[in-house]
């Protein structure tokens, strides 16, 4: 049975499994908290935040810097023909805080961290490590999934801030050089144009994308079947799925925002 219907059905099945993964993880962690214990050791959580957050700063800032720079340069030259190059700071600021920051960071983190989570958990499934953790009664969801999902969920928004900031730096530097906009004026114009609403939209998106990436990666990792080849396939699927779902949710968020606020 091929065709759109079976594709939609499998997608919905996966979606419900991911939602159940979230519910079960919260339940397992909650059970620990009720019993007066930490859901997981802080050292494990910090190890994950370190590689997820601190480890991604380099990539995120480098890529965002270049995108911000290119965006300012290309739009600047177009706007210059109308004598409107003073709009560049606002343009870059709005596009990044509201759209490109969360989106680009989401894509980079899905590729870098999502893939690592899936490969790691998948390998643990194949070597029966996950089963052993389950058999000891430790609860693999709270022990393995909990700290990982929480780490991306909390740190993606921080990375988005880094991304927004470096993009502005890139745009400010190139504007200074190509359009003689002083950095002072750039910062002023950029801050002027930013709206609280855009910042909130960007932040909400960031948390959402972090949750999606973490859950998809862990779900794909835990459902690996069939040895090394299975791990490879799951890792590819994890990245592709996470990026697709992130872009789909981004579009959805934008439609909802436009419908709500008419802008």
């Amino acid at each position, binding site marked *: 049975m091929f065709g759109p219907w079976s594709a939609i059905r499998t997608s919905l099945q996966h979606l419900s499994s991911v939602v159940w993964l979230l519910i*079960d993880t919260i*339940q*397992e962690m909650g*059970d620990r908290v009720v019993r007066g214990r930490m859901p997981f*050791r802080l050292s494990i959580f910090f190890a994950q935040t370190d590689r997820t957050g601190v480890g991604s700063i380099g990539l995120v800032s480098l890529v965002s810097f270049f995108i911000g720079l290119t965006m300012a340069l290309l739009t600047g030259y177009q706007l210059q023909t109308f004598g409107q190059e003073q709009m560049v700071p606002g343009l870059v600021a709005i596009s990044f805080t509201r759209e490109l920051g969360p989106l680009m960071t989401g894509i980079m983190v899905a590729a870098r961290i999502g893939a690592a989570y899936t490969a790691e958990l998948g390998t*643990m499934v194949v*070597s*029966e*490590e996950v*089963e*052993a*953790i*389950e*058999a*000891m*009664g*430790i*609860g693999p969801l709270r*022990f393995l999934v909990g700290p990982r999902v929480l780490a991306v969920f909390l740190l993606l928004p921080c990375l988005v801030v880094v991304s927004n900031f470096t993009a502005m730096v890139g745009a400010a530097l190139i504007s200074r050089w190509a359009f003689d906009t002083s950095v002072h004026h750039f910062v002023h114009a950029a801050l002027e144009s930013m709206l609280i609403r855009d910042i909130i939209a960007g932040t909400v998106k960031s948390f959402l994308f972090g949750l999606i990436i973490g859950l998809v990666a862990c779900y794909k990792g835990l459902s690996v079947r069939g040895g090394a080849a299975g791990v490879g396939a799951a890792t590819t699927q994890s990245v592709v799925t996470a990026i697709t779902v992130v872009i789909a949710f981004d579009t959805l968020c934008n439609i909802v925002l436009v419908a709500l606020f008419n802008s």
Partner: protein
Amino acid sequence: MSEPQKNSVELRDVHLSFDEKEILGGVSLSVPSRSRLVVLGQSGGGKSTLLRLILGLLKPSAGEILFNGLKVNRMGRLRLNRMRQKIGMVYQYSALISSLSVRDNLALPLEELTSKSRSEIDQLVDEKLALVGMSEVRDKMPAELSGGMRKRIGLARGIIMDPELILYDEPTAGLDPVISAVIDELIISLSEKIGATSIIVTHEMGSAFKVATQMAMLYKGKIIACDTPENFKASTDPVVAQFIAGDTQGPILQSTPS
């Protein structure tokens, strides 16, 4: 739940299939408390699967599994986790956590599930490592160990929580004869000292008869015989007799070309 808990584990007409293929077709088995049951059976016959069912890692397609009189197959995730803390599992392929050192592998259940202090944990780890003769590899990573060494660490991890029920999946396969004898004795002494119930899957007939107080033969998805070792040795059942003797002549290979 009404009867007193004389059976640690009980399986009632358990069926299990993987992708249409029936692995267990009505297994019934009772394991009295403090006994040592050795399960014999062909390779691929579903022995490891049986142990996974007892731990609630797999759900049977039909039938019931009881541990201490409670239905394992009806338990939710949280109750299962609590039940599993009373069961130790020694994996056929060790299943050590590859990212943790030997010490941390053994300490993991203690750290996660008890409120013991670091020094108490270290002491317990050292004690169990000494039991399996592996004290010198305490700070090594699993990848640095041989298969047999990993197996012994896996055994030490299985008993670290002093479980009521210990499931051994081929604990002595691939070990040298001396260490095998040490492990056999360890299995016996664990059940006698802490009063643990043991279910042991093994292919080594020598150690099977040494450790068993009860024996069961799993054949074609059913328990075809369950008896004392003496009666097993004297069994006239062609399948059991052939399996114990390791004969090529008999019903086993004729019926299953595998």
